[in-house]
């Protein structure tokens, strides 16, 4: 991957001192307008979150009073209510199981398949690769009805393992698509050395290639985690048993059923609890992600 050779923000020391001395007025205006627009966008992004968090500590009556009144005290019972009465707790555990299982399956199958397609020549290699990539573009909605009956036939419909394996099947194209170029780029001298040392294909993969592929595996694990956590159509269509609901479909049911009798405080609390895990993962791994996305952060 191209490294920071191109970052526009790499002025020489002399240029930097020159800049400090005199920045033309037109330049200042450009910079000022840019900042203003970005600050406005940042507010539009952040404000809904802050408002949601604030509302999650209000009682339903306070929510209905005014969008701006601050909560009189922090009503943490909203979180307790959402967790127990709305069933968010159960959905949360189900989601952890399904997403955890699906993530492991996706990364194991995805990196194995990508490795094989990237490093071995055989008839049909290109065809299989294209078949995988085609899965990125076709709408899931076309597949959803037959998928329902395939899972039913396999006895996997409405089960958490069935959901996990379906999640990972639909995450495979994305994973393979981005792992193949990575495995291709690894030097073949390493595998040759491993072969000369007597390592079989299995050992070469697990003891040589996987450690070398760690950055790619980490990046794709994060992206897949977010994608799987946010999965909505598959559970809604394939997981009808309420006790086995995952978080996203449980949220939809919670928001949809109660209408005006809904416990608004708990609803906002449920939204916050759905957001927090992905937010934590994003903030913790943001650096690793941005390293892969933004080539050479300008710090």
């Amino acid at each position: 991957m191209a490294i920071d050779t191109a970052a526009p923000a790499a002025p020489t020391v002399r240029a930097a001192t020159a800049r400090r001395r005199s920045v033309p007025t037109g330049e200042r205006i450009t910079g000022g307008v840019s900042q203003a627009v970005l600050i406005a966008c940042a507010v539009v992004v952040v404000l809904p979150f802050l408002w949601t968090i604030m509302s999650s500590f209000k009682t339903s009556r306070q929510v209905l009073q005014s969008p701006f009144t601050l909560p009189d005290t922090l009503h943490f019972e909203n979180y307790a209510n959402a967790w127990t009465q709305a069933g968010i707790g159960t959905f949360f555990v189900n989601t952890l199981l399904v997403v955890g299982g699906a993530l492991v399956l996706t990364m194991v199958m995805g990196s194995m398949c990508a490795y094989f397609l990237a490093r071995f020549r055989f008839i049909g290699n290109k065809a299989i690769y294209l078949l995988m990539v085609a899965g990125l573009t076709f709408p899931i909605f076309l597949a959803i009805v037959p998928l329902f009956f395939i899972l039913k036939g396999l006895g996997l419909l409405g089960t958490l393992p069935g959901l996990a394996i379906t999640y990972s099947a639909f995450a495979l194209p994305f994973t393979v698509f981005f792992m193949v170029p990575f495995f291709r780029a690894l030097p073949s001298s390493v595998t040759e050395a491993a072969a000369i040392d007597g390592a079989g294909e299995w050992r070469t993969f697990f003891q040589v290639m996987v450690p070398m592929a760690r950055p790619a595996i980490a990046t794709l694990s994060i992206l897949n985690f977010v994608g799987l956590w946010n999965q909505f159509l598959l559970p809604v269509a394939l997981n009808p048993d309420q006790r086995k609901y995952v978080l996203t479909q449980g949220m939809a049911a919670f928001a949809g059923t109660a209408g005006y009798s809904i416990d608004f405080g708990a609803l906002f609390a449920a939204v916050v609890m759905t957001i927090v895990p992905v937010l934590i993962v994003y903030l913790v791994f943001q650096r690793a992600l941005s390293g892969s996305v933004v080539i050479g952060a300008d710090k």
Partner: protein
Amino acid sequence: MTTLAPTAPTTGGPTRAARWRRKNLTVDKVSFAAVFLGVPLAVYLVLVVSPFLQAVGYSLTSWSGFDDSTPFVGLRNYVTAFNDDVFMTAVRNSVTLVVVLPIVIIAVAVALASLVTIGGASNGPVRGVKGAEFYRVLLFFPYIIPAIAVGIMWGQIYDPSNGLLNGVLTAVGLNDFDSYPWLGDARTAMPATMFVMIWASVGFYVVIFVAAIKALPAEVFEAARLDGAGRFRIATRITVPMMRANIRTSLIYTGIFALDAFVFMSALNAGGGPQNSTLVISQELFKTAFTKGQFGYACAMGVMLAAITLLFAGAVFLVDRLTGGGDDLQEE
């Protein structure tokens, strides 16, 4: 490291990749191939490829799913679809989404990415605004939030009497919006929904384009600056043309996103909105299949949705060709 999403990876063939020779087939290699290629491929074929193919077959039947009988009806489901006013409303709404959303999302994302990377004040080289990294991280936030949570959150923000939006509008003196039902009025339901979808996805493309702009050679910007080009000219004449491949891929992704829209619609107006103004194909398909049990008909809707997706992708490639692109097609 890999690149994130729509940037096309280079796919140069393995120069010295191992070849399978018959005499080399050991237990190690055979088991390796069976597990490494066989298992993922089997899962993929059974759970992804075969449903797509079956859907096309079922779309020619009046299958109700309750028994094994799948009476062949030819293209009757398609004829029904074209005469189905509700479905055609859904098609119109989906087409509106796929025409508007990709253009708006990409335009906003390119603009923001340009501000972040080349919008900064200087008299020397082209540089980004202060805090560029902060904006990039922040703008990406909405993209990682589950779309259903985004939808529910915005449903509350749009709430006529307790929502944040009307609260802000009345606070600044626009009292007409005191209890305006953004999602309950056929005139505003769709634009309001579109805004949520843009809000949720634009940050992802900002990140993509920031990466793409930073990957461009710095000399190009310096040369443009020396020739007296302003920020706007640099953005429109240099970065956009040089990001053509990224923009094309991103347009196709946003198109797929716009044609789905199921989760946002479920959260904001599950029933299709006032006068079905936000009803989309995916919602109608889901209802036809899982509420009405008309699985054959639902599959026909799915085929039509896929056809619209392909038409859209074709249109993007066509426009790209007609406007002088195409040289970089081999990259993909």
